[in-house]
């Protein structure tokens, strides 16, 4: 039995926990405002808001519910357009801006935009045009060319600037961005959550399926997932921490990309974190996709994997979910072959950790894809250097999309050590030679092997242009 609140209604359901929230709301609750565009999180037509009790107040995030198992709704507030609509004949300021600026043509993607922008109004982010646009970076529209939607968003910025110290929810209620009953949701959730058992069942003995954000499992095998009894770790609070433990940083398995992006700890260590992680999928996906999911998925082009490879991260896996034995695997040894991991089926990723960068550290992440944002990389790469006075004393380079697994480029990394920047031509030539010998890209829909090799070389150069801007 799963319990959550759908708009105003408290739901207790025995539907399969693997069913998508999308199918539940459209075909069981007949709330047809949420649309189906692609069922793989790439269009945003099914965007909903997911509210969580954060102790003192609710926090809402946009998610594409085509990839969201019902089990991830447990104990949360699920908001669809029907839960945002004011009484008949009226519109919220978000809806009004979209109407007035002609931000809707065929209308099929529109609800997704309205929900995303409503989520933006409900969060605590600064009221800038850039932040508003980021909130709809997961919504695809084929009709408008987005310019009218940009104009609608700027209208909202003006409204949000009048927030005046109110909490986001109270402000949104006062401005009729959401209905007044939103004020009572936190208490209602508290009540539901107090009766929900939080203890996690341990893994089944055979072929356990562990699900977290679901953003890849529901793309790869959506039909199978509906009836799979998966162990869900998405809601495990103990797996959601980002901790600074002295010399190293520990990141829990269920930390999402958005959590990373918003983490003060991470932002202090990686000044360009937001810019870099903006290249990773889209806001609603970042709100769901987790660190462990990205690692375990073993995609040769996993963005976070490539990121953490350059940080020489270590993966901590535990046998089962309860009191099993933990052991550690360096991330660069985690991938044994295409989609083949150096962990047993019943071992669950608990966290990863890496040594804290220090004042000599320079880090960069590069990614090029067919479309710059909201796309899978053709090639991605990260680099972590320690530099004193233009002398590279330590170097770690990683790359994705150029081999069957995400690569830690060991030889290129060691070649970089004790080199001084800028490099002379011969050194560059030599390094590129080593770099090219470490990769083995194949031609596919994301690009030819020739292109990927050239791109790898260019992004390698781009790292240094970014890290030594004045040189």
């Amino acid at each position, binding site marked *: 039995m799963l319990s959550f609140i759908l708009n105003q209604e408290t739901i207790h359901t025995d539907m399969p926990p693997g069913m998508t929230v999308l199918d539940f709301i459209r075909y069981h609750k007949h709330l*047809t*405002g*949420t*649309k189906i*565009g*692609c*069922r*793989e999180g*790439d*269009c945003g037509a099914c965007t909903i808001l997911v509210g969580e009790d954060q102790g003192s107040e609710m926090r809402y995030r946009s998610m594409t519910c085509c990839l969201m198992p019902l089990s991830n709704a447990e104990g949360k507030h699920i908001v669809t*357009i*029907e839960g945002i*609509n004011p009484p008949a004949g009226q519109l919220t300021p978000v809806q009004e801006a*979209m*109407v*007035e600026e*002609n931000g*809707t*043509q*065929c*209308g*099929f*993607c529109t*609800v997704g935009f309205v929900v995303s922008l409503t989520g933006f109004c409900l969060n605590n982010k600064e009221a800038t045009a850039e932040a508003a*646009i980021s909130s*709809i*970076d997961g919504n*695809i*529209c*084929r009709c*408008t*060319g*987005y*310019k*009218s*939607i940009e104009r609608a968003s700027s209208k909202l910025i003006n409204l949000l600037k009048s927030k005046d110290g109110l909490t986001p929810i109270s402000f949104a209620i006062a401005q009729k961005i959401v209905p007044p009953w939103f004020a009572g949701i936190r208490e209602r959730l508290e009540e539901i959550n107090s009766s929900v058992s939080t203890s996690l069942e341990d893994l089944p003995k055979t072929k356990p399926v562990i699900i977290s954000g679901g953003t890849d499992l529901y*793309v790869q095998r959506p039909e199978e997932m*509906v009836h799979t009894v998966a162990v869900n770790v998405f809601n495990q609070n103990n797996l959601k921490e980002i901790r600074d433990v002295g010399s190293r940083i520990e990141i829990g398995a269920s930390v999402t990309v958005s959590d990373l992006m918003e983490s003060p700890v991470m932002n202090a260590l990686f000044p360009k974190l937001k810019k870099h992680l903006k290249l990773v999928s*889209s806001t609603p996906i970042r709100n769901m996709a987790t660190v462990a999911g990205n690692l375990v998925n073993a995609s040769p082009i996993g963005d976070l994997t490539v990121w953490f490879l350059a940080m020489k991260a270590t993966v901590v896996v535990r046998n089962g979910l309860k009191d099993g034995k933990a052991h550690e695997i360096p991330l660069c040894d985690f991938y044994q072959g295409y989609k083949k991991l150096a962990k047993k089926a019943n071992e669950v990723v608990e966290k990863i950790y890496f040594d804290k960068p220090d004042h000599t550290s320079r880090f960069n992440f590069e990614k*090029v*894809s*067919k*479309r*710059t*944002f*909201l796309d*899978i990389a053709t090639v991605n790469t990260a680099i972590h250097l320690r530099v004193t006075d233009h002398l590279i004393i330590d170097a770690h380079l990683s790359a994705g999309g150029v081999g069957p697994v995400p690569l830690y480029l060991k030889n290129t990394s060691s070649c970089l050590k004790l080199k001084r920047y800028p490099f002379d031509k011969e050194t560059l030539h030599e390094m590129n030679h080593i770099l090219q010998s470490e990769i083995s890209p*194949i*031609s*596919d*829909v994301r690009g*030819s092997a*020739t*292109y990927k*090799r*050239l*791109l790898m070389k*260019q*992004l390698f150069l*781009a790292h240094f242009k970014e890290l030594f801007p004045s040189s």
Partner: protein
Amino acid sequence: MTNTDAYGHVRGESVYLDDIPIIHNTLFACVFDSPVAHGVIRSIDLSEAEKIPGVVRILLAKDIPGENQIGGIVPDEPLLADHHVHFQGMPIALVIAESEEIAHDAAKKIKVVIDPLEIITDPRIAFQKNELIIPPKKFKLGDTDIAFKDCAHVFSGRADVNGQEHLYIETQGAYSVPMEGGGIKIYSSTQGPTAVQRTVARVTGLAMHRVEVEVGRLGGGFGGKEDQANPWAALCALGTLYTGRPVKYSLHRLEDMRMTGKRHPYSADYKIGLDKDLNIIAYEAVFYQNAGAAADLSPAVLERTLFHCTNSYYIPHVTATAYSCRTHLPPNTAFRGFGGPQGMFVIESAITHAAEKLNVSRSVIQRKNLINPGEEFPYGQKAESEAVTTWVQADDQFGLEKIMKDAHDFNAKHADMKRGVAMMPVCFGISFTKTLMNQARALVHVYTDGSVAVSTGAVEMGQGVNTKMLQVVARAFSLSPDKIKVHTTNTLRIANTSPSAASSTADLNGKATLMACEAILDRLKIVAAEELELQSNPDDLKIENGFVFYKNEPTKLDWKTLVNAAFVKRVSLSEHAHYATPGIYFDWATAKGHPFAYHVYGTVIIQVTLDCLRGIYEVDFVKGVHDYGKSMNTLIDLGQIEGGIVQGIGWMTMEEIVYDEKGKLHSNALSNYKIPDIHSVPHAIDIQPLSTNRESLAVFSSKAVGEPPLMYGIGAYFAIRDAVRAFNASASPRYDAPFTHEKVLLSLHDSDIKEKSPKYRSSKA
């Protein structure tokens, strides 16, 4: 006024096909489609699929009671494959089951044995093997053979342009409901309700009057639902015929992308000749259209390629030949621009080729050769041209020279960032090139409470046609919009419709609506004169804001009273009007005529900035002047312009359709076929209306706006090329759209690639 549908859209209350409340007893359909692009079916094994509980029926070609044929122009496309399969994704069987999930599961269990035959995916190879859909088409003006001899400069080359996935966010679908007496009602997401009706009738054997097609609205069409909405409707109808139950099929995105055709890829050879003053004297083009496995709308698309092969330019000697080539891809189909953009890409490539060789700016050749009023298109129609005026006004308002100079200065200062600029003039003919299709009907009812209902043949798919129809009625009757309701498109109310296509929907249906209103108004004025006891000319009467005016003075007779008076006097308050565009004709025997009611013109300046290190780019701006006529709705028309530009830029830049040599689609999902997102659109789009006093034929002197702006996007291709050459002056990439990040990087660093040892080279899968 704002779009009348917007209120429902933003509240999620607008009803699309998949939102129609499920009727009790509904069954769900799923197609089993060919895994092989070309072959002979040896056997189909349904046994495993039929065993699944909940499977009601699996239908094959042999079960079709009517004709197994959905080809509209040429009867060459079976609904379900009988002996042969002609493309991957060709429907072979239809599973009807109690749930969508069961239908999908069962489709996966169907087994088919196919003896493979040779697969052709390249239109030039199809041409060599004489695999043509129709005999070649040719346009001729003057004599190119002679003219080329007199040219100071002659250049020839090849240009290729890829297709484009429509990617309407609402996938294809249909819902078929049995009606009493053996009829069928179809809810369809179609641009062509009559095409659906005709196809359903043909396949089921029912007469058309027993097939009702209802279209509420579309979640996008762009041409993809002009003819390719037909099969799903016909399949659902078959299901209903066999089971007597409602049958619904809303395609999964992967099914939609795999089974439906796209914009036609073209390969073309061109030869362009200029005199010493850079006047284009002669132009030859041979187009190889990749039609896919069946005709679909390809012949009509092919014709429009020829109609627009000289874009906005006057060229005295033209020979253009076009071949519609049969390959083993899903039949390609209509897409905004309908072959016109492909024709334009080739002439723009030819001009660029000449400009680069002669070391002059493209824009010099473009400007010099714009068509003037009175000059002749290759198909005989004389231009009422605004080509020069839109160019001059764009230049005046935005300053081409300064933009180019600024870009040049920027490029001098930046080693790794380069700007490129391109002008893109567009001339697009408005009317269906098939003259008979230029007709429409509208039905207007005035009810006794004064409210008005209107139905037309127009399908609302986001282009705002409902709002425009409402505006026509509001203006004709001088009524407030809340008194008027534009209803769904339904073949019982409006028969024999043309599809909503060719940018002509508002023109044609708007005129018919206006005629219907005027007929009612004429009758009401007579009633008003009687009611006001005036012995006057009805022309002295008019209706304004709900009251009758006599000689411009208000009377106390209001709209509702007048309507009731008419009803009491047994005067008809309804009208069904018919409009046919006057003065258009075309003779294919001579390939001359006057096929278009008018042309839409415009000119834009596009600038891109290229990151030469990474081979990625951004479109800085698209600025220009567009010929709206007198826009009926500036908000809606601006939306069409901006949306069209971005869709065109998408086609030219990131949207890359990839089929392998087996005819398998690799760009088969949104994860690997990328359309513009909000970050990839031009930073600024500024399109100003042309100021002109020229009257237009269309309703209230407006001009069609749907397709023309897409072609502005072609400018992005040439702006990128300009930027590439600013970085690498020796780069001369093939004219091969789209200009993906991959092609950009490879062009920027072409010398780098050549240096590489062979092991780094490999061909694309």
